[in-house]
């Protein structure tokens, strides 16, 4: 691990009791939903992580606890460092506190999480779907959401499928 990053990871460990992993030179720090906002604030104010590069989630379905990892990819321009924070969440009613107070970019990113994974950002100023239309059922990027296909039309089921097609009929 990078020397500069090591002190930061240690500081997180002391303050928030986090654990960390390393893979191909990237450091992943595991935090909890309770202390993630404090951790982000500390990183932004004290260690110059000005930019929340990416914010997304991974679904580990069928595993239920934890089912999701919410991922915060942070960048520091002043120190040229990157750090990834992960928050494991359980499968039933996953919730995270909103990070819009720390990084405004989290506004749209959290709406995307709500839309795609059904992870509720608590205290979000504008909790609406962002990409899918209002009234969509389900959350498309969950692993148990089926990837839809159109049924191929053969001679034996031609008319049956034709009836369901949206174009105008004679």
């Amino acid at each position, binding site marked *: 691990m990078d020397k500069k990053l090591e002190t930061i990871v240690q500081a997180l460990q002391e303050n928030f009791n986090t654990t960390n992993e390393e*893979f*191909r030179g*990237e450091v*992943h720090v595991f935090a909890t939903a309770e202390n993630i906002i404090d951790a982000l604030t500390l990183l932004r104010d004290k260690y110059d992580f*000005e*930019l*929340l*590069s*990416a914010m*997304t989630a*991974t*679904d*580990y379905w069928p595993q239920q606890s934890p089912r999701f990892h919410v*991922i915060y*990819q942070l960048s520091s*321009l002043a120190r*040229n460092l*990157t750090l*990834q924070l992960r928050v494991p969440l359980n499968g039933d009613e996953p919730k995270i506190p909103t990070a819009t107070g720390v*990084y*405004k*970019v989290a*506004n*749209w990113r959290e709406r995307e999480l709500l839309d795609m994974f059904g992870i509720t950002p608590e205290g979000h*100023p*504008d909790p*609406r*779907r*962002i*990409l*899918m*239309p*209002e*009234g*969509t*059922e389900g959350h*498309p*990027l969950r*692993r148990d*959401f089926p*990837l839809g296909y159109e049924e191929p039309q053969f001679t034996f089921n031609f008319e049956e499928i034709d009836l369901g097609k949206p174009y105008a009929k004679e």
Partner: protein
Amino acid sequence: MAQLEEVSVDQFKHLVSERALTGETMLLNMGPQHPSTHGVLRVLLELDGETIVNCIPDIGYLHTGIEKNMEAKTYLKAEVMSDRLDYMNTTGNNLAYCLAVEKLVDLDVPERAQSIRVILTELQRIASHLVWLAAFGLDLAAMSVFLYCFREREIILDILELCSGQRMMTTYIRPGGLWRDVPVEFETAVRNFISYFPKRIDEYEALLTKNPIFLDRLISIGKLDAATALQYGVTGPMLRASGVNWDLRKARPYMGYEQYEFNVPVHPEGDTFARYIIRVEEMRESLKIVEQALNKLPLGPVNSDNRKFVPPPRSEIGVSMEALIHHFKLWTEGFSAPNASVYSAVESPRGELGVFLEGDGGPKPRRVHWRTPSFDNLSVMAEITKGHLVADLVAILASVDIVLGDIDR
């Protein structure tokens, strides 16, 4: 079919000011079908006369579910979708994806392939900026710039076609190297472009940079300061136009960018004109990189010889049983990647293009997330349009350089 739900107005009340509810200000829909929204973006405007009180972008009209689709494909096959994300920067998307895959499975790329990748992505950057400049001119009623820019872009597309057989969706950069080596005509074609293009940039500048009508529309319009830009995750030329010197090619060099000499244009003004002039300067810098890369283009293979990840060349399949087995395995089952995640980012023409890739130990990724620069760059719109006129919104929107395929994914 999903049932249509009744949506109550109360859900959207918090988006507009109280004056809109009493009818004092007007709500106006701009888009999704509007020539200056560069695709299918809908902007809800709250107007006080001609002045913008609130600007609420509404995205998702071009949502294609590429992230979900990539999870259902093997690592090699999923790459084809990456071209379709940001259709102005296809080789750049391929590069971002391939770098992530190479990092995940720990694969080395030969030097020749690295140089060719740099040449192609820099040419693509010029092509993307040309389309941007064309549309920017068109939005500000400078019609002829549009025609000139597309004329030059055609040359770059011809070079891409020469290499890959495809003008736009090339999928030429593959995990472990390239699809195949460039043809012999490649060097001459690129050299011709290098000698031809600088004069053309001078021409665009002669048309625009000192044109008083053009300047009146741009200077001190849509001001964005550095702190706000970083808060909203703005990257790329937009961030550099706000005075922050941050370019991933310099800060975290990939593909051997540390060996090329080029400047990163930075302007502190943060207005629409700064965003324009930075992109023009970047075209000149990209040309410098292309020239240097072409001058020291090393000879050698263009693909890693690690057959567990890179399919063998056609010539080997006829004579080697092992090659045939590898070919068959890689194109049916695919290779397996470790149960871990990587994040790798490149500097696209619009900013930090990041790929978050998580494997599950098998041949298909568990999660592919595209951190697309336009998405975050657009989210700052509400801040920078406040108090400007509707006509200025068109200039600001054009200067953000949005690509809807990049935003909606």
